[in-house]
Each structure stands twice: as C-alpha cells, then as structure tokens.
C-alpha cells in the first residue's frame, strides 16, 4: 500500500487525518479500539492494513480478505450526535462508500452497485463491502465512532463455504483497481459531505434512492440463527428502521436483523 502517496494527497486536500498503517493486523476495528484505549482523545484517525488476518463482521463473523488485495480500514471519528442520531453514521458511511464507488465506475454500465439495509454494498447483487460500526461512549454528547470498512477490491478467490454470494471490483470488472485511489476518494467524500449527518431525513432519502428494496419481497431473520420469514419491504423510516409488512399484512419497524432478497 502506497501510504506516502495517500498521506501526501490527503495533505493537499487540507483534511486533517492521521494514517496509521500496519502491514498486517488481526482486525482494524480491534486495533482501533486498542489505540483508543491508549489515546482516548484520538479523532480523525485512520487505521489501515494491507492484510487483515482475522477481520470480523457482526458477531465476530469472519471476513476473509486476501492479503494485499482489498481495502480494510477503520476510521476513528468523534461526532456530536444524540442517541437518536447515531444510526445516521451507519447510513452515512455506506452512502459515502456507495457514492465513491459509483463515481469511480461511472462509465462502466456493467457495474451495478446497490445499498442493502442496513449498511452493505452489493455489486451485481453480490456482497462487495461490509461495514461494522462500534461505539463506546454512548452516554456522552461527543461520541467516538469506530467505523470499520472492508471492500473487496482485487480479490478473486472467495471462500465458497460462506452462505452469501461475494464478489470484488476486479471479479466483476475484470480490471485491477488502485486501492489508494478508492480510499482517497472515500476520505474526501466522507469529510466533505458531513453536513448530511445534520439532516437525517435528507440522508435517509438519498440512501433509499440507492437501495432497491422498496416493495420487494424479502426474507428476514431477526437474529442470525432465526428461521427466516417472508415479508414485503415497504420503506426505511426516517430513523433508519426497516419497515416490513408480514404475510398477515401487519406492518412493523425493525432496528435489528438481517435481510435476504427473495429470488
């Protein structure tokens, strides 16, 4: 990873961001948490690695990443948000990452990106990116967000044992992408558009446009080991909850759970 290029380019933008690079680390979220334990005041800090050996998703689900192929990073960001607004960071991060990728591949009509509730990015209906947010000091006005992102960039070998269809930018486009370029665009977009975090309604509205879920029949699991239920995804409410109509016609809001698009 060319961190010298990255640092130099970020310096040019005027964004104040510390980049801490590891050739290899277990998980950037874990590294970020350890870093925060030593430096509680850390802000605008990017933990970056080329080889995440034990990347994790929700509930410590393994996220395998081919060494040197993908983007795996965690942004430590302090934000003054109320408890009701914390979910916006989820939607903001996925929306920014989606926008960044869409911009980069604007001329390639074969690359169909889509947001999946609550914060996944799909490429041609396969999982491309995962985001895992962690928060520690929820009771304080200024909260420290640990924003972990993983994007499959140049990976071409995938773990077939995983239940989900997984893909990468290279697998779908046939071309190698520069990880530094994607990360740089993401950082620029992330720091430029933070105004959206102050307008949750607008953010959710924008997010919904990039998601294709409304009106679709989906399978929904409340918990990872739950039996999936069929429902119609009606909407995403302004607070980010998923509004589902079950088979009995009852509409309910969900703040947690997992969806699979029915075929």
């Amino acid at each position, binding site marked *: 990873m060319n961190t010298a290029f990255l640092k130099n380019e970020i310096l040019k933008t005027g964004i104040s961001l510390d980049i801490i690079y590891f050739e290899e680390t277990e998980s950037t979220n874990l590294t970020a948490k350890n870093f925060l334990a030593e430096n509680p005041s850390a802000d605008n800090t990017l933990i970056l690695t080329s080889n995440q050996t034990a990347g994790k998703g*929700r*509930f*410590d*689900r393994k996220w395998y990443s081919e060494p040197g192929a993908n983007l795996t990073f965690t942004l430590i960001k302090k934000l003054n948000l109320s*408890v009701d607004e*914390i*979910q916006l*960071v*989820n939607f903001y991060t996925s929306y920014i990452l989606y926008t960044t990728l869409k911009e980069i591949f604007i001329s390639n009509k074969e690359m169909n990106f889509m947001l999946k*509730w*609550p*914060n996944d990015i799909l490429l041609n209906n396969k999982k491309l990116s995962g*985001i*895992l*947010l*962690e*928060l*520690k000091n*929820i*009771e304080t006005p200024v909260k420290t967000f640990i924003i972990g992102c993983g994007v499959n960039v140049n990976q071409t070998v995938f773990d077939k044992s995983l239940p989900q269809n997984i893909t990468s930018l290279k697998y779908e486009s046939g071309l190698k992408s520069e990880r530094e370029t994607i990360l740089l665009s993401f950082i620029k977009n992330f720091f430029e558009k933070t105004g959206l975090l102050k307008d949750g309604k607008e953010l959710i509205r924008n997010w919904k446009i990039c998601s294709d879920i409304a009106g679709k029949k989906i399978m929904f699991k*409340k*918990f*990872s*080991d739950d039996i999936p239920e069929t429902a119609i995804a009606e909407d995403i409410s302004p607070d*980010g*909850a998923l509004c589902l109509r079950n088979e009995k016609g009852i509409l309910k809001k969900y*703040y*947690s759970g997992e969806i699979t698009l029915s075929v």
Partner: protein
Amino acid sequence: MKLDLNYLKKLIKILDTSNISEFEIQEEGSRLRLSKPKNKIIASSQPYDTSFFNTLPPVKNTNTGSEEETRLHEMPQTEVTKSSKLIEVNSPMVGTFYRSPSPDADPYVSVGKTVSEGSILCIIEAMKLMNEIESEVTGKIVKILVENAQPVEYNQPLFLIEKE
C-alpha cells in the same frame, strides 16, 4: 401495608420532590425504606420513572415471564430495604441485547460477578451498530433482566447492580 405500584409511585414522587433523603414506614408487620443518595439510584432518579417495578418485558406471554412476575410481587421486604444500593442499568437505545461479543464467546458478565466502573456489561446492537454498554459503578451483578439476543426498548432495565 399494601405495596401496590401506585402507592410506591406516590411515595417515590414524594421522596423525589422533597429535601428528605430517606424515610421508613412500618405498618402491619411490613417495613419499607426508601432512600435517595447522591448517585443515580432506584427510587430517586426521575420522578415518574417506575422502571424498577417494570423490570420485565411489557408483554409476558411466556411461562418464565409469569414466574418471574410472581417472584417480583412476592419479593421479601428485606430486598426492598436493600434496594437503595441497587443501581439499574437501562438500555440507552432500541436494539438487540447481547451478553457476549459473539455467539460462542463467554458472556461479559454473569450474576454474582463483580464489575468495576467502565467494565463492559453487554452489547446493544441496532442496524449493525454495536454499542458496548459500560458499567457506571463498581459493584456486583445482582440480576440480568433480559435474555440474550432479545429486543430491548429505550430505557428498558437490563441489569441490577449492587453498588459497592
């Protein structure tokens, strides 16, 4: 003495809006003591907060739920008198309650365990945002009020901690 919820609510309200920090009533062989020390203590935090008496999920259809409920009503007076040291940890948000970082991992805390200020008690997850809930006090876990992987409402009590 009839220890019904409304009666207790009234007593709490009186205590909360007064300058009295503690009072005790003895009547027909029952004894109730309510106190209001400086920290966030049950029976003193918010005038209308009755959450301590609603420690169970609002809908109690399951057998375990009704058993718990019975137990709560039959709570001996000693427990009531002890309650001044009990700190209630409430959920700061709507989400799912998890006792451990992953399904296979050991729970962060269990009943009887001593926790210190800043210890992680649980995770409340909502939309893939994992919130580590930390203890604000040093003390012993007296009760875990929610089952693992169950949805929780805003302000729903999660733990009772006996302050050291």
